[in-house]
């Protein structure tokens, strides 16, 4: 490793972000509240992982591929957020699912 402490810091940060997002995903109620945590993880964890890879590899083949991966995640993020939020809104406007209505 070229900079082991820096690499471990970035890796730990990425893992901590993913861990916090999963905690939020489990603890929150409702898809909209859960999706906020997924969005935060998708925004913060991949750049930290990329920083760890670039610290280790520099601009080698692996580093450039990692840049492409993180760019793909970050560029598709807003579109995915819009589409998923729209689906959540449509579902929540429609009310509870039919098997829940039958139970009531």
């Amino acid at each position, binding site marked *: 490793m070229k900079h*082991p402490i820096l*690499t*471990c810091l970035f*890796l*730990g940060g*990425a*893992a901590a972000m*993913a*861990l916090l*997002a*999963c*905690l939020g*995903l*489990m603890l929150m109620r409702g*898809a909209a509240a*859960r*999706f906020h*945590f*997924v969005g935060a*993880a*998708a925004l913060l*964890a*991949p750049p930290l*992982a990329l920083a*760890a*890879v670039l610290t*280790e*590899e520099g601009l*080698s*083949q*692996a580093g450039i*591929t*990692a840049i*492409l*991966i993180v760019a*793909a*995640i970050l560029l*598709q993020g807003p*579109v*995915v957020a819009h*589409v*998923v939020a*729209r*689906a*959540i809104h*449509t*579902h*929540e406007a*429609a009310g509870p*699912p039919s098997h*829940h209505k039958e139970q009531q």
Partner: protein
Amino acid sequence: MNPWLWADIVCVALMIPCGLVILRGARLTDCLVAGQMASMLAVLALMFLAEGTHRPSFYELSLALALLSFPATLLFAHFLEMWWP
């Protein structure tokens, strides 16, 4: 074991809560959100695995998953909205 593989194990282990949310989700939108989280974790896990095993060719798997999960999510959300309102 190196730090990359530890981070990889964390990412793979975090897919378990996502699976639990998918299994116990009251609504399909909960499953969609948890699936989105799991796909992001899988991309990171493959990236860490490639670096941890010193096999740069494994990065292609991560790139392919990152690119393919995009249309998959779009299609799933579209059909969810169209067919299960």
